[in-house]
């Protein structure tokens, strides 16, 4: 345990070019997003359903007069069962796209930690294809003994299904 803390602190100390990430948990996996894109963290509330939306779009909620969509990352990435209980958390992400701010909430199982990571520690995504479209991952990082997937927040705002939904044609 002590060793792990050492390793982590060393990363902090050796490189001044660090970036802060918020890590969170989806089922058993660890994920991270740039903390500058995180606006707030909220508890789960039942959103208003959007008709005919993909299953991972839970609906829309009102944040101080703004209507934002809520996406369940567990369903989007196909990890976990997507159960929403009292401890489920919604991370509100906001990015600037083409001069306008776009905001959305993502449903995750739990928020883990804020970590400082040097730019050099960020390695590129795995060469093997997972269920997540490659463009939504900006890399992976090692945090202590665990490995976290860093998500490209701007790409999450693409709400269309990455694999076309099969139809009965």
């Amino acid at each position: 345990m002590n060793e792990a803390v050492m390793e982590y602190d060393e990363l902090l100390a050796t490189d001044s070019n660090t970036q802060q990430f918020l890590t969170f948990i989806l089922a058993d996996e660890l994920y991270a997003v740039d903390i500058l894109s995180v606006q707030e963290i909220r508890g789960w509330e039942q959103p208003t359903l959007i008709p005919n939306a993909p299953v991972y779009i839970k609906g829309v909620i009102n944040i101080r007069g703004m209507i934002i969509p809520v996406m369940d990352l567990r369903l989007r990435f196909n990890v976990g069962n997507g159960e929403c209980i009292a401890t489920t958390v919604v991370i509100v992400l906001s990015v600037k796209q083409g001069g306008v701010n776009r905001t959305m909430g993502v449903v995750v199982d739990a928020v883990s930690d804020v970590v400082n990571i040097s730019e050099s520690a960020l390695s590129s995504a795995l060469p093997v294809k997972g269920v997540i479209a490659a463009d939504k991952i900006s890399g992976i990082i090692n945090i202590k003994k665990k490995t976290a997937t860093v998500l490209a927040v701007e790409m999450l705002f693409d709400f269309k299904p990455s694999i076309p939904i099969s139809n009965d044609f």
Partner: protein
Amino acid sequence: MFRAAHSIKGGAATFNLIDIAGITHELEFILDFIRDGSKCLLQSDISPMLAAVDAVRKIIDMRKGGNQEPLVNQQAVIASLRAIVNSKNLGSAEVQADNYHNFAEHTQQFESNGANHTLQTGGKSEDEQLINNWEIIFIPSQNIFLTGNDPIRFIRELSELAELTVNTNIKQLPNWAFFEPEDCYLSWHIQIRGMITKSDILEVFEWIADDCQLTISPLINNEDRSINSKENKQSDERDTLLDPTEQLTRQSSQVQQLTPVKKEQSFTINTSNQSIRVNVEKIDNLFNLVGELVITQSMLYELGILFSQGNLDCIERLQSGFTQLLQNTKELQESVMRIRMVPISFIFNRFPRIVHDLANQLGKKVDLKIEGEGTELDKNVMEQLADPLVHLVRNSLDHGIEAITQRMQNNKFETGTIKLSECHRGGNIIIEVYDDGAGLNRQAILTKAETKGLIKSSEHFSDSQIFELIFEPGFSTEKAVTDVSGRGVGMDVVRKNIYSLGGNITVESEQGLFSRFQIALPLTLAILDGQLVKVGSETYVIPLNSIVESLLMIPGAIQQVSGALEVYRLRQENIPVIRLYQLLNLTAANTDLTNALLVVVEVDGNKIGLLVDDLLAQQQVVIKSLEANYDKVTGISGATILGDGTVALILDVSGLVRLVTDDHCFKPCAA
């Protein structure tokens, strides 16, 4: 208009912008001739004059950017303006021709001598004569102070030329009770003793020539005071400020001048740093309402104190207070909305110029008719409507109106007509672009659509279905791409823009006769009267203006027809029933049609029944965009926040119907 040209010239000369002054000087002549009726305005004269206006605008833009270079075609512009004045001389009296020569000389002075130019009007013979004594009667207009001028300055300037004897006439001074400190009641009778020319004097008064009555005559001796009426400048009580509509036209035409370049490709909407002109009446109204609101607030506050003192028998007063508050907020909301409303002339005004330029470019003769330009429309809608409208009008001109020879062959008037009109219909605003040109070529569209694989040749389509095809991306029946149109981008963007405004566009056409584009738009974007309905666990808002009636279905009137379609017989009409919960993919509390609630809505002239679980309140809702953070959802026009903070989606009825009709198209394929 003459006045405007004159003011620009005066202003430009003051700031030493000689090239602008030169051009406007020429313009002024033409306008002057037209004004006094010695020349009638010909069609051919308009283009050079508009070109001159453009040139001036360009120079201003260049100077703004710190560019001091003279405009390349400046001389050409001036020459073409002179040609107009010359052409006028052909048929008119010699005297005027003489006059013109004088004018021409002066303008040459303008161009050649740079900084030390003089502004001169009138005949040279008398102007340039050095005369010993002059007599000036100077009667400024009453509101001269409002234009920022002070008569004393002009007299002081005169005194620098020569020695003056000034007599002030105070006959106009009113009784103190009626005295307005901001008005000028004085006039002056000035005698100048010194060798100066008349043009020198005129130069002094140049700046306010339109704002005063000025009589200048040579002072022969004291007895002879014949007032020379020839130089009598027009006096009128109006000031030189441009009237607001004229300014508006200018602004909009300036916008128009800048847009065409990028218009073809994309309709980007730039809403940064824009201001809005609001009628003072509207603001006064708002003031009154806020006043009332403050009164209501203090009344409620007092009631609150009474309650805290344990005085509970004024519940009734509290209730009436809240009713008043409701009334106040409603009115306040309405007047705030009204501030955003601007007359559609805001965009219509740019069309005469566009049509004129384009018609010339294409060698067509077109008459533009504009109707209902006073109708008011939300500013946001207006801004987003401008580009699609320009596109439609350009299309009408390019594809619609035929070339002159062809029109003659088809027994039509040589001059084509394009009509822009706007009117209210129900809760919508209908904007129509009509042209009596060739119309849409049904066959050409069909063939093109087949080659593009959009439709199968065997299928049968109605006219409106075929015309819908022109809105498909990349669709153009035009063989050659011109700089006006033909790339096939455009119509799809037009439709997209109008859909995004919650509107709809339809086409009607008769080949060889006419085509008519009809745009239906909601009155305003921000607030709507809605009926709240419950479907399953969700609350939806149906725009009240699309609801015809809501009813409890009588079991006997429900029938199943033409393949599992449910219709409800309402009086003599058969109304198709749409089960909202099916369409929206929800589990509803009630799936039984008998004794269920049906909301009958009207879309594009068709009545449709929507099955809902429950009818809730009617209320005004603030429309929030769903697209800002999410995507567009078919059948949903936006979202709103209810009193308890939850989000309710607003149903887009025409979108819902599209959803249903699309489904019917696909069902046979899937089977």
